[in-house]
């Protein structure tokens, strides 16, 4: 028997709780109003091109990404623009958003809303890149990096592999899993499009071994294509981190501070590949996505296809309503997601899941002194020493934190997860990264 691939350094094995894994994707009815934040991606916010009182159609451009790293935003419902103002986003910050009052569901005419799978790729390489940019596609794995930027390989670098991330290593989340099982054909066309857009020959799809149905399904479809390999990976968090995934699949290490292209790779999430299919083949902008709504006490953990801008509350209601003992609601995975301040916060392009935690699991374990057990060091997938980085941050020794490679931290949370003393190592390291980042920036000026 072949041993399954995985990354070497560090990593943890949290309990999986993939309780929604067998729930087929359901379409959530259109909400009454949507709040669509105009900055849903990594990089610069986009410029709003509609005003209060405008009538918009589903799929119409409402904010234009003008900077190099920015993305277009489209109306996810048809109706009337109620306001263009700041709303509370998932992190509890007020950010500019377009609020649309839904009236019917009238789509832009040029969008193909039929269910027919269109396999033939007619777009040229340049047309693919342009279409992905036009339709506001961003990385759906969580980082929301504009996808068209990834397809523009910097001068002097060559892309050798397109890597498709179907790892979904976060506990609880199953949206990528369902997408792979239910939309495999479309996904594979999306991968072919990305391949063409990028100009690479070889594609590797990485899926953790806890999703055998997805591995089997995609392997069968991949057999019809050239140079698309599906790899089953040993389950280990954070394998979905792109640096860990490249290491697992190819044994290559992305150098510190560099992007995957440095080792000839471009990584895209399965959700992104699906969105690319819809954008290029169906002319459909990124206005909806699959979101896992789950939690141990939730009546009906589900995978829902949701319009961007839908309030979190609607998803929870669909899943059976908020349990009475709820203590925390997390936007994203339990390892890297953010605790929500309000259930009115909108679903955005980067929302992969909504997880409801009961009260007894909402609070952190009690804080004790560090006993230097080294469990955080053993768990760190980047080979750092979280206990020292946290100490250096606490003492505001930014230079020494930099020397100890604090900027290499990918914020996966394995250190805090594994700490027997309940030390909030990642909290301190985040503060340190912010300060060290500022210090480096100032030095450059």
């Amino acid at each position, binding site marked *: 028997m072949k041993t399954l691939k995985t990354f070497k350094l560090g990593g943890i094995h949290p309990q999986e709780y993939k309780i929604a894994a067998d729930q087929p994707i359901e379409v959530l009815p259109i909400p009454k109003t949507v709040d669509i934040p105009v900055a849903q991606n990594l990089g610069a916010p986009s410029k709003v091109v509609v005003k209060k009182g405008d009538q918009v159609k589903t799929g119409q451009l409402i904010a234009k990404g003008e900077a190099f790293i920015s993305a277009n935003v489209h109306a996810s419902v048809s109706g009337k623009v109620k306001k263009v103002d700041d709303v509370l986003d998932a992190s509890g910050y007020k950010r500019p958003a377009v609020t649309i009052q839904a009236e019917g569901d009238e789509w832009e005419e040029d969008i193909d809303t039929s269910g027919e799978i269109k396999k033939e790729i007619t777009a040229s390489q340049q047309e693919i890149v342009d279409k992905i940019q036009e339709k506001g596609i961003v990385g759906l794995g969580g980082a929301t990096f504009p996808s068209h930027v990834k397809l523009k390989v910097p001068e002097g670098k060559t892309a050798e592999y397109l890597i498709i991330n179907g790892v979904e290593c976060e506990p609880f989340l199953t949206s990528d899993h369902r997408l792979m099982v239910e939309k495999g054909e479309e996904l594979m066309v999306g991968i072919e499009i990305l391949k063409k857009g990028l100009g690479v020959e070889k594609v590797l799809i990485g899926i953790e071994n806890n999703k055998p149905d997805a591995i089997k399904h995609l392997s069968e479809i991949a057999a019809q294509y050239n140079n698309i390999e599906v790899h089953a990976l040993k389950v280990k968090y954070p394998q979905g981190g792109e640096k860990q995934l490249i290491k697992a699949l190819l044994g290559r290490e992305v*150098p510190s501070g560099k992007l995957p292209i440095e080792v000839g790779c471009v990584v895209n999430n399965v959700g992104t590949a699906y969105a690319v299919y819809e954008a290029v083949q169906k002319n459909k902008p990124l206005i909806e996505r699959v979101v896992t709504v789950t939690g141990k006490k939730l009546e009906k953990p589900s995978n829902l296809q949701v319009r961007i801008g839908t309030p979190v509350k609607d998803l929870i209601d669909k899943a059976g309503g908020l349990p009475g003992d709820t203590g925390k609601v997390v936007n994203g995975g*339990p390892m890297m997601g953010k*605790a929500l301040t309000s259930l009115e916060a909108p679903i955005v392009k980067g929302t992969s899941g909504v997880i409801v935690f009961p009260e007894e699991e909402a609070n952190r374990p009690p804080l004790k*002194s560090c006993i230097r057990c080294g469990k955080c060091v053993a768990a760190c997938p980047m080979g750092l020493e979280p206990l020292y980085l946290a100490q250096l941050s606490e003492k505001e020794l930014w230079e020494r934190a930099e020397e100890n490679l604090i900027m290499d931290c990918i914020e996966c949370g394995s250190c805090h*997860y594994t700490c*027997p003393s309940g030390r909030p190592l990642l*909290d301190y390291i985040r503060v340190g990264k912010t300060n060290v980042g500022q210090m480096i920036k100032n030095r450059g000026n």
Partner: protein
Amino acid sequence: MDKLVISGSPHVHQNTSIPKLMYMVVIAMIPAMLVSFYMFGLGALRVFLISVLSCYLFEYLIQRYLIRGPITINDGSALITGILLAFNVPSSVPWWMMVVGALVAIGMGKMSFGGLGKNPFNPALVGRVFMLISFPVEMTRWPKPIVSREYFSFAGMDDKILDTVTGPTPLGKLQEEGVEGISESSGYADMVLGQMGGSMGEISAIALVIGGLYLLYRRVITWHIPVAYLGSSFALAAILWFADPTQYADPFFHLVTGGLILGVFYMATDYVSSPISAKGQIIFGVGAGVLTIIIRVFGSYPEGVSFAILLMNAATPLINNRFKPKRFGHKPAKAA
């Protein structure tokens, strides 16, 4: 639900805590404790009780009246120190020496540095070495297993009887009489089971290994220190033995005698006083193994485990500083 809890990620945590880890260590020490009860009877029970109760008492008193901070005697670490200290003394040690040893272990070894997590040295070993140097006679009188147990009472043992039921440890014999001295001593099977003179907890290699495997299985400890420590001491002893078997004992003898196995699994692996990275732990283990054999073979003490581990404890900050984990995305040369 009135309010949602807001905190940074991660939102799930491993089901672990300091007490949980500590009590697993205690569970792992049970087989060796049972062996000592069997071999030394009431004598062993007496020493265990005095040691553990004294450790609890001194930790409580110091936290309550000197530090005036939170009382953490329930975290299990005082219990471990108490058991380990008892493991490291002969069953005949007078009660008041045990109390002094516990005071030094907890007071000097741990609390004077600020408590659990701050101590550079293994507290039990600090106490043990203090006792060994201060009370050299009582600390090196070894009641014979089984033979001696019927003469023990809770008060200890009469000195006159004691002299008739004590004997040297295998390592002591080696020190005194050379390789010929150990050839007629008890066989390996007896030694592995615990039928030899020695400190209460160190005599049964098999019981200690069972507990050690449990700790590895439950991932309380990792393999790095035990493997490096056992491997290096075995290798060095083997080199010496190959060089001159008439002068040096064979490596298996070194493995099963004295406190080596006890040190390897339960004292060198102490979280607080050993290095944090896998690489550092291997350096630490190798250093302790080499020092142990050097002290045993060339030093004036027959046994070197305690000193070797304490010396490596002293080197731990340096090891942590110099030997960094393997970094992701850095060339090995740049890693330091």
